[in-house]
């Protein structure tokens, strides 16, 4: 009896959060309609550009009066909110309609704020993807670790160390490919540190990850000033990968320039995300990994060496993060800059949590963060009235909203962060 009561209580909590999600989206949509569409409408026309390269069909610029545009997009958002509410009443999934509503609100805002200005729409999305690349690699690293029960706060350290190593190796060899090959090993060596101390010596993983980050930031800064600055010509002139246009696909309007005119690192990302998603849910390795993250004792009982698999997975995670680190140097700007990852590891971690520890969720969260980040710089460049600092806060505020439960229940793998020993507490 009490069991039943407990279950229904948990249910109602989830329902409450879903309801909160729907009502927040709905009220934001209505607010957007009133504020951007009527109360404080833009006075000029907003222009959206879609052409970036020489696509097959050159889509014409879309010129719309800021007021009308905001109204259209707000109405889309309102309609989607209604759909979300209906779906909620039927008990169906609300992700799609709330997603569309959020998109509508974003677009209404852009149309409003860029009144009288030109928005390079395709470029905006392309830049968003690029900013999301290291975040996606980082969150995949976190995903593999945490799904197997090891908290990984050291993503920042993995990214920074591998950015450094790939930059230096590519500079010394004059080959960006060598830089890309070396980077995973740098990420993996940080992982070795994490795995050894977390699994072999049972050090608290949150504290450990934090300390590793401090270590890597200090060490790379030290080497940067001692080595890379004075001997810049030989040590810090990494060549970069050129863009690789995929024949045919790159000529599709909008989609082509965004997804199929990228460097090899970005294509690697598509492949790796696909492989991880498949492996995690469709292979023996994935089943075992999820088992040791949720219930290590049970996994041990059926003969899985929990700590060995955890160790191996943490190292694999380092390899993945390493490619993300390489993106910073050989994948984009070439030369290594001091503390160039600038907290991306923590955003990647936030994306992982925002995405509820699922690969696709993390990817979408990372893309959202990338979009917010790039929207901010685009708006700063075209010169709008909102202080860029507030735009820069958006990803972080979004994360807070996410983890406090507006997007539904967020739960980590059950054994995440708990060292495993036979006959131990769990």
């Amino acid at each position, binding site marked *: 009896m009490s069991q039943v009561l407990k279950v229904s209580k948990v249910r109602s909590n989830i329902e409450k959060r879903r309801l909160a999600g729907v009502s927040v989206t709905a009220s934001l949509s209505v607010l957007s309609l009133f504020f951007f569409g009527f109360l404080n409408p833009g006075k000029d026309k907003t222009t959206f550009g879609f052409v970036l390269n020489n696509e097959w069909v050159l889509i014409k610029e879309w010129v719309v009066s800021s007021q009308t545009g905001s109204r259209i997009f707000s109405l889309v958002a309102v309609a989607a909110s209604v759909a979300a509410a209906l779906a909620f009443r039927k008990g169906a999934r609300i992700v799609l309609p709330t997603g569309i509503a959020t998109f509508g609100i974003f677009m209404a805002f852009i149309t409003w704020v860029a009144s009288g200005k030109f928005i390079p729409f395709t470029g905006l999305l392309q830049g968003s993807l690029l900013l999301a690349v290291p975040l996606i690699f980082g969150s995949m690293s976190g995903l593999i670790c945490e799904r197997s029960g090891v908290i990984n706060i050291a993503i920042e350290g993995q990214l920074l160390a591998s950015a450094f190593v790939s930059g230096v190796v590519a500079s010394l060899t004059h080959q960006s490919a060598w830089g890309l090959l070396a980077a995973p090993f740098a990420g993996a060596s940080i992982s070795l540190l994490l795995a050894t101390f977390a699994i072999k010596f049972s050090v608290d993983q*949150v504290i450990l990850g934090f300390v590793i980050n401090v*270590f890597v930031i*200090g*060490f790379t800064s030290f080497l940067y000033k*001692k080595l890379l600055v004075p001997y810049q010509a030989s040590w810090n002139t990494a060549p970069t990968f050129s863009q690789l246009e995929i024949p045919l696909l790159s000529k599709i309007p909008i989609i082509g320039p965004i997804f199929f005119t990228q460097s090899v690192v970005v294509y690697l990302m598509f492949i790796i995300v696909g492989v991880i998603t498949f492996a995690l849910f469709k292979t023996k390795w994935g089943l075992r990994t999820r088992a040791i993250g949720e219930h290590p004792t049970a996994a041990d009982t059926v003969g899985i060496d929990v700590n060995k698999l955890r160790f191996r997975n943490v190292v694999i995670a380092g390899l993945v993060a390493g490619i993300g680190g390489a993106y910073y140097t050989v994948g984009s700007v070439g030369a290594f800059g001091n503390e160039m990852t600038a907290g991306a590891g923590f955003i990647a971690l936030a994306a992982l949590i925002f995405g509820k520890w699922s690969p696709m969720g993390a990817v979408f969260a990372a893309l959202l963060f990338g979009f917010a980040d790039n929207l901010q710089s685009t708006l700063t460049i075209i010169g709008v009235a909102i202080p860029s*600092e507030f735009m820069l806060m958006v990803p972080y505020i979004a994360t807070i909203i996410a*983890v*406090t439960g507006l997007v539904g229940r967020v739960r980590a793998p059950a054994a995440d*962060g*708990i060292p495993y020993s036979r006959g131990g507490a769990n």
Partner: protein
Amino acid sequence: MRNALSKFGQAIKLPGLSFFMAFTITGLIIAVSDAKVLAKFSSPLDFITSALASVGNAYLALFQGSVFDVNLIKDGSFIQGFYPLSETIVTATPLILTGLSVALAFKSGLFNIGAQGQFIFGAIGASYVGFNFDLPIGIHILAAALTGAIFAAIWGGIVGILKARTGAHEVILTIMMNYIAAYFILWVLKTQTFLRPGRIDPIAPEVNENARLPLLAGSGFRLNFGIFIALAAALFVWWLLTKTTIGFKFRAVGANAQAAKTAGISVPFVITSTMMICGALAGLGGAVQVLGSEYALNTDIAGSFGFDAITVALLGRAQPLGTVFAALLFGALQAGGRTMQSNTGVPLDIVQVTQALIVLFIAAPAFVRYIFKIKKMKSSAALTSKGWNG
């Protein structure tokens, strides 16, 4: 007596070995990265002596920059030689306060990574009251420091309320709040209110004379009253934790939240009030930095005080007294590191490596025992935080 001595020896054995290992590794890094040492690679003896000289010089500069430098004595003024020590204390003062903030949170079972953001809000509050009002001496300091502490208590309290109400993890919340605070101060410094007349770069006006903390050793030293505020705060945290009911509740929740809840302690209350007090402590750090040594709010006011605080609290094992000593040590490393950088060309960042290594080894007693083949002995439990679901 003998027994007490051996007990003491046991107690400092692991920390001592941790320090030894950290400084050895740091020394190796310094030696290997020195071009003059590497040039002597062909002759082993020269190589070793020059490596030792390189490390020795660096560590000598570290000492000269943090404790005592005989070269600074001039006109028979012996006291001038201790200028580095005063710099150590000035650097340690905000570290003590932010370190206490993190340490107190640990006691309630919370991992407060947010000292950085709380520090920023404390600095903003103190600066605003400091330059914007004209108050009598004494009252002005009090008003400015209190405003800073309250701003930061609210900022920390938001995390407490969010965690208490929704169960969201404080590590993620505080990391995010740090970023928001970092952008907030950039914006604040661009506003008309905080713009210094005649300047266009982001720097606030200096706080009024009345709002400045008194200097303790004359105008030649930056040493100020702030250190007493920090020590008083340490005393307060000790008193709060050991002598009051509320402190007992904090520790009960920190030890076992489930059991504390069963015993009738309101966990949400403990989480919220802990985060508010932690915020106030870190905010006081920001206030002291503005009112005691910087005087003007700038974009880099917080440095890395809030982040170093975590290593400080970990090294101090979350004890008030331990935190004070740890902050003094890290203050010395920072102050000495600056001298080391200018005298021997070893970048200041190496200090961060040393700090990380010290804390890593302290947090991993099993590792130190493994390296030195020490048998397992009774020792206080290592610090732990709680995983995402905790």
